[in-house]
């Protein structure tokens, strides 16, 4: 059962994990791990992508990238190439 309209997202309600960029619009999940080179990883962690924080995909820019997220009560956007380094456990 998909709760979103984003084609690449197959994970709504499933127990599997995915990368943050694969999560569909309106979908939520909690952060499992953060990858990438040390600078990017540090930055993502420091922005709050840690400790199982809940993330919601708010929208994508009209041209498909970047992606807007909500976490810890604020909004930020990441490019696809960075979002893919955040491993997510999607929640229904």
């Amino acid at each position, binding site marked *: 059962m998909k709760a979103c309209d984003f084609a690449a997202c197959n994970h709504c309600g499933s127990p599997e994990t995915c990368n943050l960029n694969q999560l569909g619009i309106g979908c*939520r999940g909690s952060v499992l791990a*953060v990858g*990438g*080179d*040390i*600078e*990017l*990883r*540090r*930055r*993502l*962690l*420091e*922005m*709050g992508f*840690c*400790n199982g*924080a*809940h*993330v*919601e995909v*708010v*929208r994508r*820019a*009209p*041209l*498909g*990238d*970047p992606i*807007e997220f*909500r*976490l*810890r*009560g*604020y*909004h*930020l*956007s*990441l*490019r696809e*190439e*960075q979002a893919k380094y955040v491993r997510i456990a999607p929640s229904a």
Partner: protein
Amino acid sequence: MSSCCTPPTDTPTARGTMTVALAGNPNCGKTTLFNALTGLRQKVANYPGVTVEKKTGRCKLPRGKRADVIDLPGTYSLISRSPDEQVAMEVLRGLRKDSPPPDVVVVVVDASNLQRNLYLVSQLIELGKPMVVALNMIDIAQRRGLNVSAEKLQKELGVPVIPVVGHKRRGIAELKQAILDATVAPTPDWPLPEAMREELLLVGGGLAILDSDEQGSEFGVQGSAKSEDASGIRRLRLRGSADADRPGLPQRARLDTYKAIAERLLIGDRAADLQRIAAQEPVATLLSNASGRLQTLGIDPMQADVEAHYLWIEGVAQKVLDPGAPTTDDNRILSYAPARTLTERVDAIFIHKFWGLLIFAAIMGLLFVTLFWLAKPIMDGIQDGIKALGLWTTSHIADGPLKDLLNDGIFNGVGAVVVFVPQIALLFLFLAVLEDTGYLARAAFLMDRLLSKVGLHGKSFIPLLSSFACAIPGIMATRTIENRRERLATILVAPFMSCSARLPVYTLLIGTFFVSYGPLRQAGIMLACYALGIVAAAGTAFIFKRTLTKGPATSFILELPTYKLPQISQVARQVWINTKAFLTKAGTVIFCLSVILWAMAYYPRLPETRIQSIRQQVELSQARDRIDVSNSGKPDPMAYSRIPLVQKLDAEREQRVAAAQAEYSLSGRLGHLMEPAIRPLGYDWKIGIGLVSAFAAREVFVSSMGIVYSVGEVEEGKTADLASAMRSDRYTSGPRAGQPVWTPLVAVSLLVWFVLAMQCMSTFAIVRRETNGWRWPIFMLVYMNALAYVVALAVYQIGSRIV
């Protein structure tokens, strides 16, 4: 190292003036608070060696004390590597020679974004400086159903927490009092993994032993660097805690200081004060062993550290929020805001796939119209005004070099600087409003995809758009781009955008040599010029991304802040500060270059004998023309009217003198000197003079062609005389004698040159100012002109073989 050599009597209170650093996340309202604290007593400068602005101000405190307030660049963290954040970190740690170490740190916390703001606070706690928290935007938090209690936060942190509303000046008096009462926050017991605690103890203990050994000169470093290296940890320890060396201090507190250093080393903090220690044996081995052991346990020290901080933060956040706040549900972290906030509802339209782009286009259209058309009459007015002022002031001075210097050198130079003010002021008006409202981040969000493909940033859009009006405000607008590499790339390609100064040149060349094409196809050529500039910008940016500005994947982490109403006073201040910075920093360079260019076109003067002989020659030919008219066979009643008026004859004579003077001057000689180099492009020495003079501003090319072709002053839209003179100009000698100087192909080659070449001293000056050095403006001059030369050469050479 002023921090350790400061005598104990020189305490903040003893001196009367203390240093206060204002720290905080971007978008936390820090600047508003800075303005509220310091009023108009502000200074804006650059930190030496970096392109980061240094803002300082004076502030009166209670009890007759005063404070120098440093407004640090907005920063998310004290470790990350952007130049802005590095400067903030270095000032806070007292590592910059240009800034005194702060006595008190005021950290601004956005209550509506508590957790992420507290992350910086958690790092500042480790700094061990007296600290005050200014709790901002409580109203916004409240509107979201979040009641952040300042009292509870104060209890949790152990430092004064003052609720403030910057633009209403609420809480400012209390904040000033709190600065005097600031205390050092107790370091929380970070919930680190047990293994990491053990390693910290191990490394910290190791550092303590090494440090005590060093007094016995056993620290394992050879040579002259020994003493300096050996004292490294000691210095650091002193900075970490001023009391660390006091006799009688419990051993345990000393060990804590070493553990704090160990923690910074282990998580990869390589600030200037740590670099040497980290690289030095046996510390390096100690560190790599510790990291290795942790790694086998699956622990990354850096990640463990950030996570421990956030764990602590989550606990604090839960305690300081009113019990009503929805912090315990399944989405405890995500859903601080149960209902859709106003910002989210506005964004549903403003960054909507269709409406968002439409609104974006409308706003950008307005910006462009403002810069391109609205600013024009003001700019013309300013230039005419300054010219008139010059003529008025010099009206009592006899004709001669002094008068010319004042009018054409000094006043013209002032005009060349001041003329940019309307565009710069208007652009910064726009930028300040867009930034303060929060729309700037949305604009970047919308456009990023388009620009990231060529290595630029969403925030490059407005600078590039503005550059179509003029590269000066455009390049100044790149300040909104935080990432240095993307900012530099944007600066380097911005002058490719066809600015309004190129327009008169395009019009002259297209109007003169493509008459038969008709208006539609002429417009097509014009469009092609603009397109060529855009393609060149995209292409070079793409190449820079892979070469010059290459580096680890840029982290595009763009916060989309809450929408806010702009404050008029803040906007006005932004406009004023940036305009002033332009006038003082770039203005002087533009003025000097302008006077130099004037002198190059003015000296050396034509000898009087030459002037006389030119006048005689012209008179002779004029007389011959008259005879021709009167001897034209039959008596012609209209013949007399065809004889030009005396004034016109005089004017023609003086125009010929001016043309000869132009050729005789330094820039004229330069034009001749350049001829062998520019001949393959299809240009002669006269065009060479035009190119030299165009360095003052590209449109000057037209007026200097007017002088060279003896047609006098060329007014806008009245280029018919110049056009016919150019069309009928033929080579008088050399292999091409008799052939026309100008062909449509020459015009195309010259158009290409004008699209691509960097020939604007003001751009040069502004790039120097914005990159804080001569390296990039010189690089820009070389690469753009090389590109322009190669492409114009190819166009002419290939074209002349086909045609």
